[in-house]
């Protein structure tokens, strides 16, 4: 990745020039929303502002943010997939995408051809290029075809001239066997996957009596989405598959935005010509300074799709301070976890990602799925559910986890071991009412 590090010169534009472009695009989107999008016309009216009042990004922050709950309410009230935020720029929609359904309600977004020709597809092309995909490379795509991100990837891979390998099946860890067969037959150079799927692939190799590095002997890079990688997980992937590098990408299909890591792995570069990202205090809505954790608020700066103006994704994120050695001038943010994956134990705020980091410090538990049980009547302990590790004493592992919980999180542990975990990958914290045979049987 030396001679052609950047796909487009805009990636290294001076910050002032980027800010200028961002403000110009923001004004255009605001004007469009004011004129054409009922969802925002109402919000402008409620806030008592018009696009004419907004000259800078600071002015823009007077527009109230909204959350998935607001979207859900609008979909329920309208009873249909269009809720007045579809900024299709006069084009007809070509695709309607549904999200995977946090809050148990998948939302909808409309996409026009513009999005796939000139819109966010350009960001995804830059991300994939940044992460080492080159023309002619064989890329194994282990992502669901219906997902917004996959649609963009499909076009981006085409335009980059990569050769694509699409396995049959659904992209849940239970289907790892099929994907191993695909990898063996097709010798991919690169894998795009959900993070939990990579763990499942490694486990499935061992179950089949094969070493992952033999099955994936052609593979040099992996890029994962869906959840952030812990250092333990990165190390495991690199060593088990003998990779050159492992990358992470992130974003949200509620909000139609995405970003990816460069080779320095400091966080995700958010392309400022397409997205305006703020990090705010979840309660007060005040901007938090770089380096501090807050909720990610996104504004999409291009049309041809459903438009999001100050949409609070309810994900924990941090703006990474300083400039990136890769030379890209676009902001870098680190994504941590869903706000919903947070609970208070002994008066401390604990995220499921903290638990993930803690577990990944124990080699046998790297990447292994877990669940945290939320007990409304008992917040004195961390109620953790894990699958047994073949060949390891439960008592020994329990002691190690217990010790780390006390030292790193300052909370006591209540651990339950299971033969297997549910197949779902999305939820990490579940209410007591859902923990039981029902949840386990679903997989």
């Amino acid at each position, binding site marked *: 990745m030396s001679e052609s590090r950047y796909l487009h010169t805009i990636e290294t534009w001076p910050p002032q020039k980027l800010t200028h472009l961002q403000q110009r695009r923001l004004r255009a989107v605001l004007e469009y929303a004011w004129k054409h999008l009922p969802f925002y016309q109402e919000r402008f009216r409620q806030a008592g502002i018009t696009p004419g009042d907004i000259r800078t990004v600071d002015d823009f922050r007077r527009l109230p943010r909204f959350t998935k709950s607001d979207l859900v309410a609008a979909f329920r009230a309208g009873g249909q997939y269009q809720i007045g935020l579809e900024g299709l720029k006069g084009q007809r929609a070509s695709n309607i995408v549904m999200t995977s359904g946090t809050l148990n309600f998948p939302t909808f977004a409309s996409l026009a051809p513009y999005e796939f020709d000139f819109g966010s597809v350009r960001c995804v092309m830059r991300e994939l290029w940044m992460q080492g995909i080159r023309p002619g490379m064989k890329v194994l795509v282990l992502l669901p075809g219906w997902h917004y991100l996959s649609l963009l990837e499909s076009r981006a891979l085409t335009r980059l001239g990569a050769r694509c*390998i*699409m396995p049959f099946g659904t992209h849940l860890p239970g289907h790892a066997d099929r994907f191993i067969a695909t990898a063996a037959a097709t010798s991919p150079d690169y894998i795009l996957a959900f993070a939990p799927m990579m763990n499942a692939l490694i486990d499935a190799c061992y179950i089949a009596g094969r070493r992952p590095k033999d099955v994936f002997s052609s593979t040099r890079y992996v890029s994962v989405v869906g959840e952030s990688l812990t250092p333990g997980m990165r190390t495991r992937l690199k060593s088990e598959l003998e990779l050159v590098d492992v990358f992470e990408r992130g974003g949200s299909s509620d909000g139609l935005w995405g970003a990816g890591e460069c080779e320095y792995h400091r966080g995700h570069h958010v392309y400022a010509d397409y997205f305006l990202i703020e990090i705010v205090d979840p309660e007060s809505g005040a901007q938090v300074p770089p380096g501090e954790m807050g909720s990610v608020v996104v504004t999409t700066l291009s049309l041809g799709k459903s438009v999001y103006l100050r949409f609070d994704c309810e994900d924990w994120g941090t703006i990474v301070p300083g400039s990136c050695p890769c030379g890209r001038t676009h902001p870098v943010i680190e994504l941590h976890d869903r706000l919903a994956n947070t609970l208070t134990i002994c008066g401390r705020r604990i995220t499921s990602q903290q638990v993930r980091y803690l577990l990944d410090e124990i080699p046998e538990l790297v990447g292994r799925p877990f669940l945290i049980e939320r007990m409304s009547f008992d917040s004195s302990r961390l109620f953790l559910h894990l699958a047994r590790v073949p060949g390891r004493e439960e008592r020994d592992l329990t002691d190690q986890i217990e010790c780390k919980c006390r030292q790193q999180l300052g909370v006591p542990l209540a651990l339950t071991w299971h033969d297997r975990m549910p197949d779902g990958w999305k939820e990490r914290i579940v209410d007591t009412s859902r923990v039981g045979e029902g949840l386990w049987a679903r997989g």
Partner: protein
Amino acid sequence: MDPDELLHYCYRCSPFYQRKFSSLAGAITSSATLKGSFQSIPPLLLQDMAHPPVGDAFRGRQTRPPEIIYQLEYDVPVFQGFSRYDLEAYAGVMSDAWCQICVRADDRVAIYDYGSSPVTYLSSRVISPYLRQGAADRIGAVVTCNDGLPELVDRCWHLLTYVQPQVLFMRCDNVDPFLRLLTRRGGWPAPPPRQVVVSGNEEWPGAQEISAWERALGTPVRRLARADLAMWLALECSGGRIHMDSDRFLIEVVDPQSYTVLPTDEEGVLTITCLFGKTAPSIRYVSAIFGRLCSTVCSCGQLSASISLE
């Protein structure tokens, strides 16, 4: 592509077909027409392509490196490779099927199938890499799809509730879970689609089953025949038959044991040759679909040759 041209091309470029045609090598290399010897070409069986060795996904069947590889929906690992031109032609076949059920511009078409099913990936240019125009793009329809797992039928329900599609494509496996949910909830969440199309790779639900589904769904149900290894797709006509698309496929009915070609009206298995797929050609692929070439004119009024599937 003309069958002669396809056979010569395969002989020149595909190691697998060079081996397969060895008994016919004299005819292939000469300029003589091959139509006469076509039926003596050894058939292509699923097991010939299954469990490919490391790094040889097509077992030598390919004529050039594909731009995209799809793993097919069989119990064993089997792969099909495409160039962008193959995909475009394949999507043209799907588009014709959509026209047959009168999908119109601005119609919303929902698909309850896996993303790796041709029903899904041929529908829209943004689902499959390298596809320039999917069936929906050609017609101006809007596509929406989600997980194809039967246990995720609730997500399909949610999609139907809010998107209210005019046409619903559903994999055969998903019909029963969907019907159970429909019964439990006392009917459709919104006006039912004007057409439901059911499909499965080398699956053909019987006429009685279709009638039962139509009664339970309260909307017309059509079957889409598929043999993915041969890139074959065909929608049944209103007479319940499949009409020959002889510009794109050669279809024979053969004895399932001896693979000899059967006369009209005798039942056997469909053996399909795809005339447009040049990257990993399928010549005389023996499918698992039973049927017979019909000697009578179809009740739908089309005069082209037709097949009745069992």
